[in-house]
């Protein structure tokens, strides 16, 4: 089977851009990715585009060129971008196309996501009585995890401080003001034990990746990044997942992250010990802690020591969320996972500037998790 490689990345800054439509942000990201790849829009043979807020994201062709290209809209909650890159890669692997593009764009209103529970298959009383909040799940999951595995409040604050510090080195990040552990621990509790500065926020932004057949990459770049594997899994019965009015008693089944991660490692022939830099879904500081273990990067409970030692900082043994993650960048859903891959590509090229990790990183890992219990993992290498 033909292998897919990334030859171009483009990122529109994440944040608030009054008056600028999501499609324009997406078009900017596409142009950056095309320029990075040395490819013109008419050369693109197919693409996958993800968005939560834009009704027909494929309308972006009106900004880029009406070439007749098949552009398929995808949506899979917070794992949307994992899906678009997987499909763009698959189209190359199966021989359908030689040059594809994955695009993500979104423009969310301020504040926590609000929705009609019925569209999620959940009864209306659940929303009326104040149970339909994704933040409850994150608060409850990390509270249980802290109880079981000895994670401290200070560790949650250290994760947030690290990600805001990394974002301060990233000119395209949203939250670029460093915050101290003390400042984070002094911010108001939103959902015990999670505080205001331990949460990411919905915002605006776009990203794009240009992919091609590995055997043609030399035409475009000397530094292609290989897509070693992609995996996407939904929740199994017994897993503790977001927006669940109840779940079965008995041993808690592993999250879809664990399932997707195992599959991705197996398909890549790469183990957690080989990962040089990781981008994990940090909807909140607790999620980053839990996702370190769920993605096989440490054992449950080891995070307390690893984070205290600075292992996940840019100069550490296993840098996590070097561009500031979701905490620093916010979450335009359709673009978020492509932003993660954009960062990994820069790191593997040695082109991440002030936030470049030391040495010669060869393997990068990205992970998404979202409602109603779906995870996507992408493993990349030089």
């Amino acid at each position, binding site marked *: 089977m033909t292998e897919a490689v990334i030859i171009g990345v483009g990122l529109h800054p994440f944040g608030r851009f009054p008056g600028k439509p999501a499609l324009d942000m997406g078009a900017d990201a596409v142009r950056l990715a095309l320029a990075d790849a040395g490819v013109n829009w008419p050369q693109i043979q197919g693409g996958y585009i993800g968005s939560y807020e834009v009704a027909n994201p494929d309308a972006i062709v009106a900004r880029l060129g009406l070439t007749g290209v098949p552009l398929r809209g995808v949506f899979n909650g917070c794992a949307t971008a994992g899906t678009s890159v997987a499909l763009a890669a698959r189209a190359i692997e199966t021989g359908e196309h030689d040059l594809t593009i994955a695009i993500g764009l979104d423009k969310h209103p301020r504040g926590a996501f609000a929705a009609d529970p019925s569209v999620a298959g959940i009864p209306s009383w659940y929303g009326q*009585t*104040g149970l339909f909040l994704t933040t409850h799940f994150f608060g*409850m999951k990390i*509270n*249980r995890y802290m109880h079981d595995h000895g994670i401290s409040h200070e560790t949650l604050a250290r994760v947030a401080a690290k990600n805001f510090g990394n974002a301060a080195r990233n000119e395209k990040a949203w939250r670029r003001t460093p915050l101290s552990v003390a400042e984070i621990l002094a911010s108001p509790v939103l959902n015990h034990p*999670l505080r205001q500065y331990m949460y990411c926020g919905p915002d605006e932004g776009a990203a794009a990746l240009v992919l091609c057949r590995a055997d043609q990459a030399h035409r475009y770049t000397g530094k292609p990044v290989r897509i070693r594997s992609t995996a996407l899994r939904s929740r199994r019965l017994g897993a503790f997942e977001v927006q669940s009015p109840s779940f*079965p008693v008995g041993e808690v089944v592993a999250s879809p992250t664990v399932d997707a991660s195992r599959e991705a490692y197996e398909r890549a022939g790469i183990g957690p010990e080989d990962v040089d830099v990781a981008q994990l879904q940090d909807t909140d500081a607790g999620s980053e802690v839990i996702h370190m273990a769920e993605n096989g990067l440490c054992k449950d409970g080891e995070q307390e020591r690893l984070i205290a030692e600075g292992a996940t900082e840019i100069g550490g043994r296993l840098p996590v969320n070097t561009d500031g993650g979701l905490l620093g960048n916010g979450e335009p859903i359709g673009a978020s996972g492509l932003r993660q891959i954009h960062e990994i590509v820069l790191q593997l090229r040695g082109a991440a500037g002030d936030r470049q990790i030391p040495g010669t990183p060869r393997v990068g890992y990205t992970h998404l998790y979202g409602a109603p219990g779906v995870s996507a993992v992408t493993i990349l290498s030089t």
Partner: protein
Amino acid sequence: MTTTQIPVAEGLFTWPPDESTPLRLIGSECTACGLVSFPAASDCVRCASTESKERLLAERGTLWTYTTQDFRPPSPPYDGPEAFEPYAVGYIELPGELLVEARLTEPDPDKLRIGQDMRLTLVPYRVQDDGTEVVTFAFAPAEEETP
């Protein structure tokens, strides 16, 4: 004057609860594989059977995890009072049945702990313009029980 109360939804818990029909959550049990569900569901997510029977769930359990809600949730869908009072939510493990998500009567996280005994109750979470209280199910720390 007696205050009128109505349940937030039919079929969620026994209503009105009294001596002969004490307060219980109304779940369901798959007639093929026995999986217990709440709220009651005709379709089984374990064996895909479409046959189930009603099952009243245990009124006591233990707190599996919890969090607090310290800001007013977006409306809609939340329709609680404008004057927001923080509340807590958690999952209560009903032994041999399931873990159910519910509001907790105790809003202070320092007074909650994982493993704590909890008991089913009702809370008026909203008052309509005509004074009618809308009630939903909640769990209270069992040690706070008053006779």
